[in-house]
């Protein structure tokens, strides 16, 4: 199949252009910016954001939203730490339980959204408060994670040369991205999410399994949120109930900057990957700059997000004008 400049690819191309631009600017301005190590660090530092962003891409393409992800990360992190630290549960079992819980949490929210026709915004807002509250119920303080098996996972990695190192967390991020791309383009589930987000009414009349797909989308996102919680606890070697406050908004920003339409029906997992990398790149850029406060990251993200929303608005208007 030949690649055309399809209108729906414009946001994705814009995302890639922005990424290259920031990367180029950083490489020209700062020595050491253009190195494999800095590049790999993007994947390491943003692994937990990236894992959720993949799930969020499916949710947003299906026309929904999930605000609970940040709280779920904190809850899962604390719960896993508590199980290992206080009850001596083996890490693999603890993580498995956590993934199961995350998926169930997502499935319940998806079912509420589908069967009771509740708005996703409200249902997941409830989920957000609930998960955050549960996190504090588990523990009010941070719990360290110290276990030989956990250390083994953290120490596991592939040396890439040039002083770069690809740890397990980054591998999980990359694996989830690949699975996401496969699900999105080569399975009926993936295609149905587009159909529902673009026109739910039509999807129903075309006989597509709308309810099942919706619930699956939130289940999948819940599972990935829990996985991100696991990744985050590996990354920080602890569980902390106040972790990742506002993470859901960073994730949504990454997805939108990655070229996914907030109104649903259009977007790519690959775009989200680049969106996440852009967020990481801005942070790296500001770290290299050295004198700017880290809050500048937020300002730049805000400006970028604004530009992308304008672009989307313009494109959807141009599309409707036909």
């Amino acid at each position, binding site marked *: *199949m030949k690649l055309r400049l*399809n*209108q*729906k690819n414009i946001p994705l191309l814009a995302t890639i252009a922005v990424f290259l631009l920031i990367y180029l600017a950083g490489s020209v301005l700062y020595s050491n910016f253009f190195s494999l190590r800095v590049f790999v660090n993007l994947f390491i530092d943003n692994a937990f954001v990236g894992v959720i962003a993949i799930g969020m891409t499916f949710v947003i393409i299906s026309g929904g939203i999930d605000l609970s992800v940040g709280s779920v990360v904190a809850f899962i992190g604390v719960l896993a730490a508590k199980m290992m630290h206080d009850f001596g549960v083996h890490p693999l079992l603890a993580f498995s339980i956590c993934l199961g819980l995350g998926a169930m949490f997502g499935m319940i929210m998806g079912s509420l959204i589908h069967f009771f026709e509740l708005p996703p915004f409200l249902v997941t807002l409830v989920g957000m408060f609930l998960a955050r509250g549960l996190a504090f119920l588990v523990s009010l303080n941070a719990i360290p994670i110290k276990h030989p098996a956990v250390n083994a996972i953290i120490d596991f990695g592939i040396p890439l040369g040039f002083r770069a190192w690809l740890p397990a967390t980054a591998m999980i991020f990359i694996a989830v991205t690949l699975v996401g791309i*496969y699900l999105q*383009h*080569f*399975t*009926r589930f993936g*295609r*149905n999410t*587009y*159909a529902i*987000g*673009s*026109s739910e*009414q*039509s*999807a129903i*009349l*075309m*006989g*597509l399994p709308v309810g099942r797909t919706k619930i699956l989308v939130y289940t999948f996102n819940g599972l990935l949120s829990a996985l991100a919680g696991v990744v985050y606890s590996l990354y920080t070697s602890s569980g902390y109930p106040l972790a990742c406050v506002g993470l859901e908004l960073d994730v949504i920003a990454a997805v939108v900057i990655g070229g996914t339409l907030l109104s649903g*029906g*259009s977007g790519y997992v690959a775009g989200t990957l680049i969106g996440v990398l852009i967020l990481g790149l801005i942070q790296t850029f500001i770290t290299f700059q050295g004198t700017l406060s880290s809050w500048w990251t937020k300002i730049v993200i805000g400006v970028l997000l604004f530009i992308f929303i304008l672009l989307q608005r313009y494109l959807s208007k141009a*599309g409707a004008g*036909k």
Partner: protein
Amino acid sequence: MDRNNVLIDIKRVSKSFPGVLALDQVDFRLRRGEVHGLMGENGAGKSTLIKVLTGLYQRDDGEILFEGEPFSLSSPQEAAVHGLSTLYQEINLIPALSVAENIYIGREPMRLGRIDWKQINGDARQAIRRLDLDIDVTQPVSSYSVAIQQLVAITRSLEISAKVLILDEPTSSLDLAEVAQLFKVIRKLKEDGIGILFVTHFIDQVYEITDRITVLRNGAFIGEYETNKLPRIELIAHMLGKDPETFSLEQTAEKTKQEKAKAGQTLLEVKQLERKGSMTAFDLAINKGEVLGLAGLLGSGRTETARLLFGIDRSTGGSIRLEGEETVISSPRKAISHLFAFCPENRKEEGIIEDLTVRENIILALQARQGIFRPLSGRRQSEIAEKYIELLDIKTPSDSQAVKNLSGGNQQKVIIARWLATEPRFLILDEPTRGIDVGAKAEIQKLILGLSEDGLAILFISSELEEVIACCDRIAVLRDRKILSELSGEAKEEATIMQVIASKDVNP
């Protein structure tokens, strides 16, 4: 008749909803390779019949045979399995996905556990070509015109192996060339032995494409006719429930000639006003103190005309002169500033604000014209409300009663009062008497006559011919989005109106 040719045989099917008998022992028979028109006015039961057939509703009584076998569906999804496909007026495709994907979504060919895109695109190209269509199937469906989308939807149905295709008003948003393209495809499908049920309000199209016509009226089966043996006038008579014998063909020719409009100054003069795709160019003149009626079947362009005059839809050509001066009415705001008023057809959705009081509903339009920075004083509000409650004889305990507690007829009067309060020069009433009881109807008709005597120009739209004749000085007759002719004086008779609607070649 060859029994094996019958695809669908609906026998004495009934369906009732609380308080309404929507279908009363209706028969319908669709044969292989025929286009069968289903005709009837609003509330005749056409959509109910289709919904019963496609499994959206369950029938209360009767029998449906599909290829001779008893047949019953519990959901629309099941219909596809039996080769029964329905296309609605709004196109049910996924706008963001490609043409090819829209044809195959839900049944994508899989290979090694993944969707086989090569095969999807290849198959789609072939399927599309079968309808003599040449488009890029990898482009999103939203990048094509409504007509092409319609054909893509048909392609999807055919790929699910359709034996029966139900087309529910498929042409209402298409232009002439697009209708021609659709009809070409329909004829091709007919040759392939597919049975096609065609619902439309366009009389010309029914005569162009159908082989047989079944007429329903008020939920009852009126008859099945062969199209080329059914004169248009009889079809209209069956649809409206009038006896075709009561009017003869000869007497109408003379009467359709326009009479001079009643003396009085011309208020509004419209020349060649049109809107592509919704209304063919027309001329219309309304004098002060005159009631002009618009008569025609449902979907003939009555409401479209009103919307154009009030600036809700922008015209694509023609001009409007108001008291001799060229005027552009580009929005309802403009229309209101020229002292126009419009009571829309759907009072529940477009007119009345249920939770506000009678007083608030009445002063709404006047306040809107004044702007929110010049509020009417409470006393002034009450004065106005009281005046119109008395004038229109609105039955309400007080002006602070919530409008939802009033009867339909009184709600209608509140809307009329709202517009009268703005002291308009030109009042458009779209179906002001629908759904209200006989007594209230008569009162509203009397009110209309009274208002016109006071010099108000009124455009009156109604489905009930008697009412139009009784109220109007002149009547413009519409069909298929076209004004066919104007009748006045003695020519204003039911028979004549029906003749005009049924006529084949009337120059507008």
